[in-house]
């Protein structure tokens, strides 16, 4: 049983999704999805522990040996990602706000939960598989379920947002497929490790270059790297707030993982950065994302859209860590991935609480709520402080590593830019604080029930905890960075 764990973690939510259709009753389906998410979290933690003690775990799907069969391969990075994704899922799924802000018809909630589980299965699949084509399949599973989830938003704009995401997502997915095809054509293998072995001799080939380009663009669309981010603000804004919490905290993270995996494991940092100088393309884009995203966030009037633009900026930070291609930089990128998942998940859940009580997600909705919903507003403040990168919060840790990484590379200007861009975050966070605590209350509301604020505070509290105790986050991230760079500790 325990050796099948790395497959089971994907298969369980995949099989659990149809069960939702059998259970039908909202209450039971809800309990079921929560149990599945928790079970996945337990498995992910076990796997992480096992990877850290025993090294890489490989699993041949169906007993077919790689490179012919599909291989599931878990190293420090995948296992870390699995924990992030399942942890977010196991906090968001049981949350009391999971059905807030949706346009579900009566008695159809079980379909919504099935889609959530499918999305989870897809994300876990992308993360654990070692086979490129399998990655494509799971990317599509995730995307298809997230189109559905986004379209369930309360406003009709959710439908158009989901449609344009569908178009963009399909193009991105197909690009990935084309890239995979090119690689297969030259090397005759789909296994990532096998590819990594065979590619070095073929790197000059134009087919490989084209394949790399397709993979990069496809992955960047999924990650919403500036300027391929257009789908993201609309999708996050109109999706149900809990879905935004889940997708913002997991989907972009997994796409980031995919890009990192392709760059570092499949092609190798030497080729990508020393020969192709990809960082001279990615770094300006990342910096542009940091500034454009934060600046755009300043002017938003909708909480979810504000957070979405802030996500684009945060993706910029992560990408920046990626193109430093050093242990410190990558650690910064990966630990920011973890921390951002916590804070953005928490913030979106807090917004979901606001929507639950006021029925609106506009910035004005929180006007004067500092007294009426103190817990929710405090969550927004703390999450915001973490976005800024105030010391004592998780955001500080990741910024620290990124700045040190930039200094190590001799990119002094970049380190200054990182700090300056986080100052813009002060502006949009403080807009929320001023509205919440100085505004005049528009709604007569009371605090949300504990089932809603507790999950929010689990994530927000975690940002505080991981701002001080960083053994787990930074330790895991640096192990992951070393695994990516192929450095043995």
């Amino acid at each position, binding site marked *: 049983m325990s050796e099948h764990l790395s497959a089971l973690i994907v298969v369980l939510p995949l099989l659990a999704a149809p069960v939702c259709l059998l259970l039908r009753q909202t209450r039971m389906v809800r309990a079921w999805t929560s149990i599945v998410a928790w079970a996945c979290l337990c498995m992910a933690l076990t796997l992480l522990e096992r990877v850290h003690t025993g090294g890489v775990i490989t699993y041949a799907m169906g007993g077919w040996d790689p490179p012919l069969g599909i291989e599931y391969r878990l190293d420090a990075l995948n296992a870390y990602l699995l924990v992030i994704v399942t942890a977010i899922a196991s906090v968001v799924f049981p949350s009391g706000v999971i059905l807030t802000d949706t346009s579900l018809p009566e008695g159809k909630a079980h379909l919504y939960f099935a889609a959530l589980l499918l999305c989870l299965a897809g994300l876990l699949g992308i993360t654990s598989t070692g086979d490129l084509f399998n990655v494509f399949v799971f990317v599509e599973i995730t995307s298809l379920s997230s189109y559905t989830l986004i379209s369930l938003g309360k406003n009709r704009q959710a*439908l158009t947002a989901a449609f344009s995401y569908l178009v963009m997502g399909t193009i991105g997915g*197909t690009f990935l497929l084309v890239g995979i095809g090119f690689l297969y054509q030259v090397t005759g293998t789909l296994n990532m490790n096998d590819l990594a072995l065979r590619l070095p001799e073929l790197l000059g080939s134009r087919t490989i270059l084209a394949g790399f380009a397709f993979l990069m663009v496809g992955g960047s669309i999924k990650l919403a790297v500036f300027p391929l981010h257009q789908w993201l603000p609309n999708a996050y804004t109109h999706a149900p707030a809990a879905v935004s919490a889940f997708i913002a905290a997991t989907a972009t993270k997994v796409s980031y993982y995919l890009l990192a995996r392709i760059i570092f494991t499949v092609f190798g940092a030497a080729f990508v950065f020393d020969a192709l100088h990809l960082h001279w393309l990615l770094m300006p884009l990342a910096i542009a994302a940091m500034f454009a995203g934060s600046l755009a966030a300043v002017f938003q009037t909708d909480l979810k859209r504000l957070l979405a633009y802030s996500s684009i900026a945060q993706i910029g930070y992560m990408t920046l860590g990626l193109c430093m291609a050093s242990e410190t930089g990558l650690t910064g990128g990966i630990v920011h991935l973890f921390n951002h998942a916590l804070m953005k998940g928490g913030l979106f859940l807090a917004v979901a609480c606001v929507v639950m009580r006021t029925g609106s997600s506009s910035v004005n909705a929180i006007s004067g709520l500092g007294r009426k919903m103190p817990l929710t507003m405090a969550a927004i403040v703390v999450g915001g402080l973490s976005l800024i990168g105030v010391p004592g919060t998780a955001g500080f840790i990741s910024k620290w590593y990124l700045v040190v990484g930039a200094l190590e590379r001799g990119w002094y200007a970049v380190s200054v830019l990182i700090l300056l861009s986080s100052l813009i975050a002060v502006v949009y966070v403080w807009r929320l604080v001023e509205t919440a605590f100085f505004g005049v209350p528009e709604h007569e509301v009371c605090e949300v029930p504990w089932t809603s604020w507790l999950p929010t505070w689990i994530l927000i509290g975690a940002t505080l905890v991981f701002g001080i105790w960083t053994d787990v986050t930074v330790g895991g991230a640096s192990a992951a960075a070393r695994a990516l760079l192929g450095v043995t500790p």
Partner: protein
Amino acid sequence: MEALGIWNYWGVVLLMMIGLYTVIARDHLVKKLIGLGIFQVAVILFYVSMGKVTGGTAPIIPEGADGSEVYSNPLPHVLMLTAIVVGVATLAVGLALVIRIREAYGTVEEDELQRQNRAGS
């Protein structure tokens, strides 16, 4: 001349561009989905033609094979079975969305939708 010899890839590129162009240039959502379909089919053709080996037969070992037979590579073809399923599923979700959009907005023309969205927000 070498470039012409790989005419199958030219066909793929052509189809891909037609598909992409349709997605970008057409306002009608269903036409966009059709474009998307063409785009995906181009990739499927790309894989299928990639697996074809000149002079190769179907990858079934006949009785009394001596190992000199040339087979087409079956793997890309098999992969495309999955890709076709993905394509169909995407189309289904897309069309379902179009139906919902039509119900909610009364139109499936993108410029009209954008106009309504702007007016609504």
